[in-house]
């Protein structure tokens, strides 16, 4: 009897990169972690690195006259900055050594501004394992909420991390 796709799928499942203790983390949340203060000099350095020259990020007066009413934080500023509470701090035990970012979605509920202290909390929303030609890929879907001092959620980031 020849090997069928079903046989291969079962074989693949036997070599899953996702151990049982990883599946148990789906739905769990970490954080809020330590706050990160959005310092003006770090925002300026960040903007210079990406070549951002919109005065709203540099000039207090221009920012006050803008729709923001103050200097906004660049949306991508916090994505990889936290030491706790964010997606990078969420340890999911996998039989995988490689990690790349697959997708990001940023939803702004209230603009975060220079001077704000922000905390992150992250939920592992889903794990999907898919088998392709180059082997198994694991898609980790996280949702990180960025909170201001009053515990109001100012931004939501949905990230898919691909592991193999």
């Amino acid at each position: 009897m020849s090997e069928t796709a079903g046989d291969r799928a079962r074989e693949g499942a036997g070599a899953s990169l996702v151990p049982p203790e990883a599946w148990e983390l789906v739905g769990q949340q970490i954080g809020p972690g330590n706050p990160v203060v959005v310092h003006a000099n770090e925002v300026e350095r960040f903007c210079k690195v990406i070549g951002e020259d919109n005065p709203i990020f540099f000039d207090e007066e221009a920012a006050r006259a803008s729709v923001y009413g103050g200097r906004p934080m660049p949306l991508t500023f916090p994505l990889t900055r936290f030491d706790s509470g964010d997606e990078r701090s969420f340890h999911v035990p996998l039989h995988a050594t490689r990690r790349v970012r697959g997708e990001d979605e940023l939803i702004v509920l209230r603009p975060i501004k220079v001077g704000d202290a922000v905390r992150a909390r992250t939920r592992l929303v889903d794990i999907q394992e898919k088998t392709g030609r180059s082997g198994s890929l694991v898609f980790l879907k996280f949702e990180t909420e960025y909170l201001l001092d009053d515990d109001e959620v100012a931004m939501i980031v949905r990230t898919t991390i691909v592991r193999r």
Partner: protein
Amino acid sequence: MDWKPGAELPPLVVGPMTTEMLVRWTAAAEDYNPIHYDQAFAKEQALPDVIMHGPYKLALLCRLLHRELGAHGWIRRIQVRYTGMDVPGDVLEFGGRVERAEDAGGERWALVSLYARNGRGATTVQGEAEVVIRIGESG
């Protein structure tokens, strides 16, 4: 620019990318996965070279939008899929197009499709954004 359906955002061209640019992003964003700055490590991971960070490309798409929004509009949502790798030497073009727009309450809401493409012809980011502009002030 006019945030009307069909309007194209004038592309933003960045590059050629260098390892130094990736290291500068690594430090400024605290984005320390060594695949972005350690070539030997990247090659051990079967990558062609150090690769550009996804959020760096996302940040450049935000820069493109902010250039057009000026002081009068803000990004309400931005969503991207990283569909390919960019490496040192690549010249990247970031662009977009207004797909839909609606006016309400003195504001215009627009849905913009977004892309990043490198000089090798690969589209390495695909996405979309929702922006909100105060009516009568854009341009």
